[in-house]
């Protein structure tokens, strides 16, 4: 494999990491001032802050790997839908608090597994960012997991809403564990794990919390993916239109 192909694959891989964190962080920031209690307003903006911070580190590294033609901001604010590499799960709209929490929990459980593996990456830069992000992700998982339990084992209404969110989002989780050629290259180089490897751990972690929450693991016979290849849901375009408005409208400006 050529050095050039390696470099391109690493760039693609870093975009996936950066894009998942940025899009989910952006979604959470939409909650600002609208949370169910003040403590949750603070917690959600704190998690958003962590995720946008992580995405900055991944995208900065991606920009370096690419060769410096674009910086992290150009990657965040000047790419259109087809060039985004995040999972469909994280771009799904916030919905009610149950949807936001369940989406977060499903991702957090994946994120912890992924970052744990990446913190042992042969690439020192990746290992460093992942170790820092892992501490945050562990807190995120605890936070979302506790809420899944409270909602599931709370009132009849909260249980129904949590179950509905789970049923609506479950089909987007298949994608988290589907490896492709890029994953394969990263795995060969000792940079990143095979995502399929931690599907079992994820299932156990999620299952344990859902059991405590008295929620049922959906037996979904549908799944939608494509994010890694830039095949997204319609929601992403609107999110980007809002997020990228200023740099697009005033391309000469420095902010």
């Amino acid at each position, binding site marked *: 494999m050529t050095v050039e192909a390696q470099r391109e694959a690493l760039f693609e891989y870093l975009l996936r990491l950066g894009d998942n964190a940025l899009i989910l962080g952006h979604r959470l920031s939409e909650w*600002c*001032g*609208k949370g169910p209690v003040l403590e949750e307003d603070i917690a959600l903006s704190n998690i958003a*802050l962590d995720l946008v911070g992580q995405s900055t580190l991944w995208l900065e590294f991606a920009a370096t790997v690419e060769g410096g033609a674009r910086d*992290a901001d150009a990657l965040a604010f000047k790419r259109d839908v087809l060039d985004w590499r995040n999972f469909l799960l994280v771009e799904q709209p916030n919905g009610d*608090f149950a949807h936001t929490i369940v989406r977060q929990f499903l991702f957090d459980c994946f994120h912890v597994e992924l970052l744990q593996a990446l913190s042992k990456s042969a690439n020192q830069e990746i290992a460093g960012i992942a170790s820092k992000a892992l501490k945050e992700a562990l807190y995120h998982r605890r936070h979302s997991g506790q809420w899944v339990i409270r909602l599931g084992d709370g009132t009849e*209404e*909260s249980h129904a809403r949590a179950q509905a969110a789970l049923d609506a989002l479950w089909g987007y989780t298949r994608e988290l564990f589907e490896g492709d050629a890029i994953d394969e290259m990263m795995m060969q180089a000792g940079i990143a794990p095979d995502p399929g490897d931690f599907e079992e751990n994820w299932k156990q972690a999620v299952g344990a919390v859902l059991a405590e929450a008295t929620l049922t693991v959906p037996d979904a016979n549908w799944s939608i993916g494509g994010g890694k290849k830039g095949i997204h849901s319609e929601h992403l375009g609107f999110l980007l239109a809002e997020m990228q408005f200023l740099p697009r409208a005033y391309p000469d400006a420095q902010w």
Partner: protein
Amino acid sequence: MVQSQITGNASEADEAARFQSKVDREIKIEPRDWMPEGYRKTLVRQISQHAHSEIVGMLPEGCWVTRAPSLRRKVQLLAKIQDEGGHGLYLYSAAETLGTSRAEMIDALHEGRAKYSNIFNYPVLSWADIGAIGWLVDGAAIINQIALCRCSYGPYARAMERICREESFHQRQGYEIMMSMAFGTKDQKRMAQSALDRWWWPSLMMFGPSDRESAHSSQSMQWKIKRVSNDDLRQQFIDMTVPQADYLGLKMPDPDLKWNEERGHYDFGAIDWAELKRVVSGDGPCNKERMTARVKAHEDGAWVREAAAAYGEKQRLRKQAAKIAAE
């Protein structure tokens, strides 16, 4: 009955004298200390109003957090909004030490019985407005709050100290945004000037009515809830801010603003008090939007709060049952 009422009054007068003497000697009043009912009421009104301002203030900033123009600005604004939520939390806790619950205070806000800062009833139209809010609104807040760090009520004074440190950080960040705008492209400069034009007068109104008009000032000064008068704080803010605007190359929207050598202060034009009255009483450009957004968030969150309470109760009963089983 008559007898005890007399001794009651006498001891109340003693307590009042002791209270005032403590205040005069700069000894902080703590939650369990005796305090006049009026003192308690004034504090609850003022602290809760301050807490409401922090959380209502999250809405105009939240309006731009999804459109922040760079990753660094997005992170900064998220951190600021998170801080403001934290300020709301400390302030509600400080007010709760006076015997009013957060839920009661929030109901009062949502039912229109409590006020919040007039400043958040203006629209945030461009990214430069986010800079202007940090620079001017947090700047004005700091001036107010530094004075409040010496407030006679201990929990409020201590909350203020913590908050002041963070507000000065917000102020610097806001000014830094203003610099990037004012020194930027023609479009950015226009946004910066427009933001200053629209936020300057409302910022001056944040210090409240003139001392001659203020209903609460003199009693609050005697109780040392208020340490510096509204007009003095306002003057301090103007003197601090005018050179900062000059540095940005922006024009203050006040033709009467000029340095007065003799006074050692800037003179400034007449404040439109009718406008303040109109905005405070609910007819500002965004009052209805802000309250609708607050009430909607609260109502939409009701089932979540109920769930958390129900779960907490179940857990309590489970623990109790486990304890009984173990005995």
